[in-house]
């Protein structure tokens, strides 16, 4: 089975693992994006994630469908959180289970790279100096690398 969602609650890593794992799968690969404390040299205190929720859900669903088609036998779940997140909190979680490790690992990489390119979610970073800024990966070298 596979599933994707935009959520406004904390992402539970164990729940994602449990959801995709089965005795027929010899590999479960996990990825979690978290809020870090710096951005382009500035101290970050938190990030406010917003989304065009209806399209974000649809685009996540398309990405999951592509992954399932690309990696036959894959079970994958992806959740992206919206709202105000503190440092270290999980913003995106992906769990992929497969009979073998290579497709499980490759699927997680595929999903996160497509999420970053295609899913309409935005970050409003809050900085230690009290300022805030919308993250634009097309104009920020560090975000392009991230």
């Amino acid at each position, binding site marked *: 089975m596979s599933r994707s969602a935009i959520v406004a609650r904390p992402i539970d890593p164990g729940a994602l693992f449990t959801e995709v794992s089965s005795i027929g799968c010899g590999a479960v690969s996990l990825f979690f994006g978290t809020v870090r404390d710096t951005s382009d040299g500035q101290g970050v205190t938190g990030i406010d994630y917003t989304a065009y929720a209806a*399209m974000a859900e649809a685009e996540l669903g398309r990405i999951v469908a592509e992954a399932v088609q690309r990696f036959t036998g894959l079970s994958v779940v992806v959740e992206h959180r919206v709202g105000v997140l503190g440092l270290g909190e999980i913003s995106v979680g992906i769990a992929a289970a497969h009979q073998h490790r290579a497709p499980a690992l490759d699927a997680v990489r595929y999903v996160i790279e497509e*999420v970053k390119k295609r899913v309409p*979610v*935005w970050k409003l970073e809050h900085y230690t100096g009290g300022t805030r800024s*919308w*993250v634009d*990966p*097309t*104009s920020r070298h560090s975000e392009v690398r991230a």
Partner: protein
Amino acid sequence: MVTVQLFASYAELVGSPNIEVQLAQGDRVSDLLRNVRALPVASRLPATPRVAVNRAFATDDTVLELSDEIALIPPVAGG
């Protein structure tokens, strides 16, 4: 006229979650963007933003219906 949704930085720059844009039956995304550029708020937006139609990314030659759900999409930054 159609209502075009704005999000995140675009909504903040314009000061509204949507704008009203002239659109005729049979117009394409390129026509829509030309009409957006004619609005007083256009100077606050990029000249060629990504456009979503019915919750999927569209191209310049996508034909629009007056009933379509249309949005201007700022550079995405999920993850």
